[in-house]
């Protein structure tokens, strides 16, 4: 590897080194605060390494990884989201008994996996990144061993993850068998013309890969793990699963399929469109009557990934920029929502029932305001990032004349979104329950409070003045 390659990979190297470093520090002496600070600091260093990486001369590092502007943008997004998760986790874990230093280890390695996934342009790095991410997640989801729901969620994720990884691998194998290469660009160049007999194996390979990817993204019908895992996992981990893990996989999806010109394969487009439509419908309608906030957010996230898939289908110049914008808005709102859930959670379990939010506006108006902003953004009310993002996706889809998914997108959104309002209503319009305020419940400690404040501002800023951010995306990614 050349020096240029090392420079290009510097954010990933920082992450890997930080993982080892944190492990060594923990081995010497445990201190939650120090470990968390070290983690946050290393994430900042990795973020600072991004401009350096951008200046690198070599962009293709080994045949496996490519560090282009696209990758750097998503790595930056991943690092920022992980930073938020780590800060939220600190406050969350402070409330739990026991030692928690290893948590950060897992978080860092999961992030590393996500970054590898984003930078991959080869099946090997794809699978490598996926497994680094997944194995860390198994442990993270089941991190609070004393809770049965946690263990159960981890087990489910493990079993189903293994099954879907098998499908993914098999798909890759078929494509390799057909084309003799595992490099994305070479696959795109060597793919047989649509409609030919040889294309069958390719299509099947893609189909199986879609299953694996669809599982990670929790798209219908591969979504079944999501509600259980969201509900069972600790709130910050849920935030990580629904943002970093899905975001990295979506970045990969776009990178892998963009050069393939999927629109030449009508059947593939139909399958993806069907998955998108099913995800939007199932997500929005199943969320309607949920009594668990985390389960509700799981279904909402299923629907949101369906919206993203609409942008993916659009695949015009607008869509290239719509996807990152949507992801940023979705990240901010989702992290914030789970941040509030985490802040309301005590040592006995997460604040999952609606009861926990009853009258929150009186007990903790700031927390209630933050949650409201997040929910309104997820709902797509104007002046929040969610509206602009949804509009952006709609615009991209309309310009590519992807009418039916857009139709479903806004209809299901219009009809299904009532569920977010239920939480808002409970927070503002119901008197608080009579139970005494537990210290944990009233406390959104400093790190998570700061993160929530920033996320709230971000959500509103994205809604009111998105122009600057759109410009950043357009100059960075879409050039």
């Amino acid at each position, binding site marked *: 590897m050349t020096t240029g390659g090392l420079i290009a990979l510097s954010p990933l190297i920082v992450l890997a080194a930080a993982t080892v470093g944190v492990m060594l520090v923990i081995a010497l002496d445990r201190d939650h605060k120090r470990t968390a600070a070290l983690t946050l600091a290393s994430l900042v260093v990795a973020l600072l390494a991004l401009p350096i990486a951008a200046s690198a001369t070599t962009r293709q590092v080994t045949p496996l990884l490519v560090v282009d502007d696209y990758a750097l943008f998503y790595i930056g997004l991943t690092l920022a989201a992980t930073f938020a998760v780590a800060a939220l986790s600190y406050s969350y874990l402070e409330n739990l008994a026991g030692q928690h230093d290893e948590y950060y280890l897992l978080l860092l390695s999961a992030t590393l996996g996500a970054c590898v996934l984003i930078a991959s342009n080869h099946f090997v790095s794809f699978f490598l990144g996926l497994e680094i991410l997944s194995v860390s997640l198994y442990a993270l989801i089941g991190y609070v061993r004393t809770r049965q729901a946690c263990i159960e969620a981890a087990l489910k994720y493990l079993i189903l993850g293994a099954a879907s990884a098998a499908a993914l691998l098999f798909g890759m194998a078929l494509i390799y068998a057909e084309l003799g290469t595992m490099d994305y660009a070479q696959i795109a160049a060597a793919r047989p013309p649509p409609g030919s007999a040889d294309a069958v194996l390719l299509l099947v390979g893609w189909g199986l890969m879609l299953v694996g990817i669809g599982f990670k993204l929790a798209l219908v*019908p591969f979504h079944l793990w999501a509600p259980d895992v969201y509900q069972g996992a600790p709130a910050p981990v849920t935030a990580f699963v629904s943002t970093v893990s899905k975001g990295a996989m979506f970045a990969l999806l776009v990178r892998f399929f963009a050069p393939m010109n999927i629109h030449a394969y009508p059947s593939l487009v139909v399958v993806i469109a069907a998955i998108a439509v099913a995800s939007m419908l199932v997500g929005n309608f199943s969320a309607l009557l949920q009594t668990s906030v985390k389960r509700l957010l799981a279904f909402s996230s299923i629907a949101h990934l369906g919206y993203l898939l609409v942008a993916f289908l659009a695949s015009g110049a607008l869509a290239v920029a719509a996807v990152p914008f949507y992801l940023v808005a979705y990240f901010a709102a989702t992290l914030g929502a789970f941040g509030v859930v985490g802040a309301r959670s005590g040592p006995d379990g997460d604040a999952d029932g609606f009861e926990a939010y009853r009258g929150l506006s009186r007990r903790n108006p700031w927390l209630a305001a933050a949650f409201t902003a997040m929910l309104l953004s997820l709902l797509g009310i104007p002046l929040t990032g969610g509206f602009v993002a949804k*509009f952006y996706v709609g615009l991209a889809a309309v310009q590519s004349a992807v009418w039916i998914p857009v139709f479903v997108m806004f209809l299901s959104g219009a009809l299904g979104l009532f569920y977010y309002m239920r939480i808002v209503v409970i927070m503002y*319009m119901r008197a608080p329950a009579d139970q005494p305020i537990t210290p944990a419940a009233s406390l959104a400690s400093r790190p998570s409070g700061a993160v929530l404040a920033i996320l709230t501002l971000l959500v509103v800023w994205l809604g009111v003045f998105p122009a600057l951010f759109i410009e950043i995306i357009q100059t960075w990614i879409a050039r």
Partner: protein
Amino acid sequence: MPDRLRQYRPLLLPVAGLLAAAALLAVPAVGWAAPAVQEGHGGGGAFFGLMPLLILFPVLGLLINIAWGRRLDEKWVGGIASGAAALSFVIAVLQWVSLRAVGYEAQTVYLADWLAIGELRAPWAFQVDTLSVTMMLVVTGVGTLIHVYAIGYMHEDVRANGDPARFPRFFVYMNLFLAAMLILVSGDNYLTMFVGWEGVGLCSYLLISFWLEKGAGGIGNARAGRKAFVVTRIGDWAMLLAIFLIFWTFGSLNYQEVFGAAASFRLDAQGQWVVTAITLLILMATTGKSAQLPLYVWLPDAMAGPTPVSALIHAATMVTAGIYIIARSNALYALAPFSAGAVAVVGAATAIFAGSIAIAQFDIKKVLAYSTISQLGFMVAAVGLGGYVAGMFHLVTHAFFKALLFLSAGSVIHAVEHGHHHAAAHHTAGGSGPAGDHVPAQAHGGAAGHVDAGKPGQEDHGEHDALDPQDMRNMGGLWNRLPVTKWVYLVGALALAGIVPFSGFWSKDEILHDALGQQNWLVFGLLTVAAFFTAFYMGRQLMMVFAGQPRTEAARHAVESRPLMTIPLIILAALALFGGLFNLPSIAGWTPPGAHALGDWLDHTLGAAPGGEHAGEAAEAAAGAHAGAAQAPELNLMVAGISTVVALGGLGAGAALYRGRPATAGERDPLRGVLGAGFTLIKDKWYGDELSDLLVIRPYNWLAHVSADLIDWRFWHDWFHNTVIGGIFNGFARFSADFLDLGVVDGLISQAPAVLARAVADGFRRFQTGYVRYYALIVFVGVVAVLGYLLFVR
């Protein structure tokens, strides 16, 4: 008198403070925004730079009330909110002044960039032209009066409902609504308009369910709010699709650019199709927001909100948004005559449909609610006919007299409630409390449900313990007890009924005139009958509320409201009386001074819109009609005659039929004798609620229930696991244990494996591993489906 004035004193400081803030902000704002305004109009347009303040004031007001509302006195809270509304009104007036100075030329006031995606540019910019300023003046003017009224009204209301702490919240929502509504009418493109469009929907939802925990069964109001939210969302969805289509077709969302592009639009087959789709989608959005057939169902339920909300949002402003946007998009409708025709027919059908329902309602607010739907139908019909001036004229006058009627109805309800309490106090304590004094919350418990307008089974009730203060059968004889309310109510009713020279006469007449001018006999006929209904139900209502003898103790002891509430009523009454002066027609060759004022004024915007000159013959017809409508016409004596006869006839028939009847609260409605079974039909609203319940609400709830409860929970978690997976697994375990082990392996190692298998099966169920197997099964099915499609369908 000093005592009366003293209650206003707390208003002084907040108003002064807001004025000072305004002055402070105005100076830099002018300097800052002035360059953004087109130069070259001399100094006349100086006030355009103040445009952002129009929205900033309500936002400031609500921020202040969020921050300090809890600690401030009620008068301050209300004063700040009203002051903010009043300042916005001042800004709107200044815009009018500036527009005059620049010769009514439309201005764009640029504030900041918002969205810039590809070719799409949607900045935060304001469209200041005669159409938007008209809306601004109505929204802020009527809004201010309603805010002031609400100070008095909500003072009582929060106590009657037992939660005075909710007072500031009401005004926060009201200011929020004002801000959203002003964004809606002042944006210079469809997207910022949509921001307001969604915003007012949200505020409407919040205010309808203001007393969330009240209403029928404790969830009536929550349900009403939810209904409004979901139903209007269908319209919002249509609006969003229309916006996408507009961008797709014209490459812009800016009003000027879209209408400019529309003028040179090549109207081939596909173009015709697209424009028709856009305009029909806007119509659909209008049926949601402006409560037209078939999406009108939410508006009557929306009366669950406090009365000032009904007046401001559900009569004067928000529900007219659809009319505004159709008038704004007149260049598009000129290209799509089919859509324009559809708009006219939907409006006229709604007018007669809702009008017929209103004549058989007993709830004083329900009558007004259906009346509002009906009057909105008049406006929609007018803009559909191309009579944009007539539609806007009616919008303005309707804002005056319907806001007046709602607020007066609120005053009547209060009076009856007071009387009810007074009477109850008489009975129990034998003495009377000081009249007009505030009652403790608990004592008012019986009336706590008064905000609920949707109680079932109101028809056949007698004198109940829990008196419904909104039921007109519980009123009667209030003429002598409400010295102010009776007059203003009368003015509002006559204006609504369309009696010369009240404002409603002039605007309604102009709509009928346009229908006749187009020889659209269907619309003309429907609207004429609807006008008869209007007069009839107002005659009925006047008689039932004010005439005859009191039918209950509550009505007997009714007390007039405080000046804080009655002064806005008097101002509104003056507007309802003289509102016709805004747009008088020429009468028999004589043009009164100021005639056609609104028409000429709006013509600067509507007339300047690029019409159908380049757009084919069909469009030219529509454009021609619109041009004819824009020149406020000669008073057509035949139309005026018909409408006067119809109005007087309706009023007279209503008055005659209800003269002295019903004599007691339990007596059956005299109209029932005339209409027979038909009465039940219209009293039950042609079963529109049931129909929408059957067609929309129930499938919606069912789907939600099925997907969340049944599929996600009961099916996946309980039934499928326990029955299917558990059954199969147990069956298999039994098979392997009983048959294989015992039979084939002939119980070699006794029964240990079987026990083990059972233990596994049990454990499996307890740890819910079965779910995962099931999930894996579904994943597998998905794999098969995906691959099957790719392989065999391709």
